[in-house]
């Protein structure tokens, strides 16, 4: 870092000046995780952008744009290995687009009320907490079991998901289930994508595994495929309704991000699915704990400033 020195770049939309190398580094780090776990990495990047002083509204909108790049980069490798269930991705996408529209609407409404930061942080704490602890306990159990048996084959549990109407056959996933749960998952993920500036992979990946019973092999590629379109749509909504997409910030993040994602995909191929999941679970829980702690502890400055009035 000392070699690189400081190179400050002024961001035209955020209207702050930041060290370009910090952004490239953050992008790279989060990119590795994105490639490894098949998550966009937004759940880590967006809070990190808050910490370095990017206005929350700009961070959320720009992060959506960056996730398009890292997901696109990641999905190409999965398409080649035929690990993408396009049909399932398409069904999830229908829900995702509806959800993104709803999410941007809620976001803009709460921005006017001055409660958007709180909403974003609460969403983080709640969702990261639930998903993290579920994944952690499940993968811990699986890890213990896999010491004796081979890594789990496609588990075909019969749940309420199989009792719903509108059944569709998803050949790549080897499933014959109702289209309703995937659409609902898509809507939820779309709302989260717009409000939290995330791809939603950290919700979608466990939902696909545990609720839909999809094989782990195709989950990552399929979620990346869906995320590309939902975040692209979110980017357009933010760009046209509140002008908060910062292209310079996005480019710096995505240059680091796409390179990191390639390394991440290579790393991910070497680890076992259970190990991968337990690592992701630990990370999710750490971010959750940090954000929750900040909400409970009395802040050193009780007052904060915002741009007055709605535009």
């Amino acid at each position, binding site marked *: 870092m000392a070699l690189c020195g400081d190179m*400050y770049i002024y961001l*035209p939309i955020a209207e702050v000046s930041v060290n370009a190398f910090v952004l490239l580094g953050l992008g790279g780090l989060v990119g590795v995780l994105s490639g490894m776990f098949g998550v966009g990495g937004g759940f880590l990047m967006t809070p990190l952008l808050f910490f370095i002083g990017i206005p929350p509204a700009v961070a959320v909108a720009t992060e959506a744009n960056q996730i*398009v790049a*890292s997901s696109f980069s990641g999905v190409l490798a999965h398409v080649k290995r035929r690990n993408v269930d396009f049909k399932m991705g398409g069904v999830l996408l229908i829900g995702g687009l509806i959800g993104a529209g709803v999410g941007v609407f809620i976001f803009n409404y709460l921005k006017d009320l001055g409660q958007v930061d709180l909403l974003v942080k609460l969403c983080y704490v709640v969702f990261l907490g639930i998903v993290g602890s579920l994944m952690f306990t499940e993968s811990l159990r699986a890890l213990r079991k896999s010491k004796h048996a081979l890594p789990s084959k496609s588990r075909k549990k019969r749940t309420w998901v199989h009792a719903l109407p509108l059944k569709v056959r998803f050949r790549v996933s080897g499933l014959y289930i109702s289209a309703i749960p995937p659409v609902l998952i898509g809507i939820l993920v779309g709302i989260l994508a717009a409000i939290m500036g995330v791809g939603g992979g950290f919700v979608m990946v466990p939902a696909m595994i545990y609720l839909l019973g999809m094989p782990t092999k195709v989950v990552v590629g399929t979620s990346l495929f869906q995320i590309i379109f939902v975040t692209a749509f979110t980017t357009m909504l933010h760009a*046209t309704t509140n002008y908060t997409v910062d292209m310079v910030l996005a480019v710096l993040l995505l240059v680091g991000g796409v390179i990191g994602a390639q390394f991440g995909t290579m790393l991910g191929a070497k680890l076992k699915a259970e190990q991968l999941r337990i690592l992701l679970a630990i990370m999710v829980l750490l971010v959750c704990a940090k954000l929750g702690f900040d909400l409970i502890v009395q802040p050193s400055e009780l007052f*904060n*400033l915002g741009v007055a009035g709605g535009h």
Partner: protein
Amino acid sequence: MRNLYAFVVITMLSWIGHASAQDIVLGLSKQEIGITAFFDGSEILVFGALKHQSEESSEGDLDVVVTIASPRTPVTVRRKDKRFGIWVNVDALEVDLAPSFYAVATTRPFEQVVSNASDLWHQISVRQLIRAVSGPLAIENPEDFTEALVRVRESDGLYQTLSGAVTLQDQTLFSTSVSLPANLVEGTYTARIFLMRDGDVISQHQTAIDVRKVGIERWLYNLAHQRPVVYGLLSLAIAIFAGWAAAAVFRMVRG
């Protein structure tokens, strides 16, 4: 350094001319600040000379106050309180007009140079400059909110009080430098110079400094606001291309 300032003052005085107010001649190291892609703050040198008109003006010491202010915009100040165990914004106050940047430099400590009356009349300190207050009437102590505004911006380096930062030589030549932070908002900034004696303003002068985004910064900002659809699509195209390029490069590298 001081000699350099004096030299700059003398050489520049020759072409500044006498267009300014009667007894202050003023120069700025720059009248325009361009925010480029690599902008990381800027130093501005304010200098000039005082002309003594009559005998009486030599009574008592003169002081000089220099202020630099960004355009004033409305700001919402919100206060957090504990609700259901977490800290949330509970009430807010709209401050009608507050500069996003304000620096005031003086020859001696502010209180010794500017009387309360002159401060009130000429709005020299930032607290006088901020115009409150159209909050909900129910709000208890609006002063807490304006104080918080000043405190937050002071700690961000956006409001600066530079006591003793103005040098005044032989009661005639003055100079000071103000460093503008990297997170500058564009607009027409105002530099004011007050000539003070015994706390009263005896003369003042003001001039404008243009702070503008230039080059690619200007272009992107305009595109984002005037043609948001094109801007959004361009952002996506860059993202897709970068994603594809990285994947293609790595495929080649791996053989």
